[in-house]
């Protein structure tokens, strides 16, 4: 237990902050994922073949390529890409992007591909009559979407989105390769300096179990809320 003491003697406070970092990255990545889903779900559902192709290309490539490879692409390619854009505006200094942003973006794009598939399935499973009824009532396009379609989509999508959240949460462990100090990286540092990898990696596993368990409980409550009336 001494190893987990808070303060200078133990790793308790470091691991606590690392856990907060994992939560922060997961939430940011999940939100970035929603943003991508918001763009690519309409593309996948579009009438036009070219939009379908773009949407399918995104989800197929991201879901078929290992997460680690995507992270390496962002980690090594991220600052290069930013510098290339900056050079077009006449800025030639070296730019380094923060590990948090690179990591959240990489995991967010992966998470977005899964979210897109979930939303696509949910929208497609909604009865056509609902769209027609909304139109017949003379509601504006905006109200149609926000008041009629979206609540139904959410109800169907939440159980599957909870899976996406679990995947995203576990994927954040991979950003440790970029040096961002989250649970995995902090355990790696602690294991290295105390020579007790078994303890610290097992403790990391426990932390992840707690996170997945708590988020399951929270999502179950959300599910109940959105299933009112069913």
């Amino acid at each position, binding site marked *: 237990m001494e190893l987990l003491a808070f303060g200078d003697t133990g790793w308790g406070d470091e691991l606590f902050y690392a856990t907060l970092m994992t939560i922060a990255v997961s939430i940011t990545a999940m939100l970035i994922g929603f943003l991508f889903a918001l763009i690519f779900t309409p593309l996948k559902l579009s009438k036009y073949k070219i939009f379908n192709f773009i949407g399918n290309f995104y989800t197929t490539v991201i879901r078929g390529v290992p997460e*680690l490879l995507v992270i*390496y692409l962002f980690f090594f390619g991220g600052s290069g890409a930013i510098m290339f854009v900056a050079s077009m505006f006449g800025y030639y200094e070296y730019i380094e992007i923060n590990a948090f942003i690179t990591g959240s973006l990489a995991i967010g794009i992966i998470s977005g591909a899964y979210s897109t598939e979930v939303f696509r399935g949910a929208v497609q499973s909604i009865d056509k009559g609902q769209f027609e009824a909304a139109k017949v009532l003379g509601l504006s396009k905006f109200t149609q979407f926000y008041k009629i379609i979206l609540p139904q989509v959410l109800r169907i999508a939440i159980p599957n989105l909870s899976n996406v959240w679990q995947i995203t949460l*576990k994927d954040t462990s991979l950003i440790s*390769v970029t040096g961002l100090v989250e649970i*995995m990286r902090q355990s790696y540092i602690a294991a290295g300096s105390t020579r007790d990898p078994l303890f610290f*990696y097992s403790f990391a*596993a426990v932390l*992840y*179990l707690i996170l997945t368990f708590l988020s399951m409980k929270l999502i179950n409550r959300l599910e109940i809320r959105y299933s009112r009336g069913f």
Partner: protein
Amino acid sequence: MDLELILNSLPKLLPAALVTLKLLISSLIIGLIIGLGFAILRLNKNIFINKFAYGYSYLFRGTPLLVQIFIIYYGLAQIEYLRSTFLWAIIKEPYWCAIIAFSLNTGAYTSEILRSAFQTIKVGVIEAGKSLGISNKIIFYKIQIPIAIRQSLPAYGNEIILMLKGTSLASTVTLMDLTGVAKYIISTTFKPIEVFIVAGSIYLFMTFCIHNLIKFLEKKYSFSN
């Protein structure tokens, strides 16, 4: 875009893809055996056996694969007792550690897939077997297992693809698989996009083959035929 690098990296990445395939196939075979074993334990009426099997799958599905590999590769080597047994020959090799971690991980997911497949088999099918006077053992092997395999094919196909992507983590314990070699080339040439295109295409090609293989099997084992 550096076309020369794309052409030059291909001969380095293809043999690495074989390492990835080897890791995938060995962990899938061991994982299937583990998964089947734990699925049967999950269906056991004894609450302790049942809970034990549930705990196993919860533990491995609730933690990242990276943690599991690190515990097995870095953690187990720390136990003095293990060093004196024959197990040490296995545990000191990163290759075997990766296979152990992957097998246990995919075993947990497979056990869940098989359990739900067994549970969705209609009681009537088993009763029909019984009324024909077939022994319980033969009902299990000749009726329940074939139906369960058919039921679980789509989900298992997804699991194979997830596992294919999971093998990329072998590169974190010094193995030179497809991702490991890709990372090496990226960090020596600083051309991430070109290498990503080549390595990504190889992965996508493998995913494509797995996808079609499962589709073919689904058709072959579908009830309508």
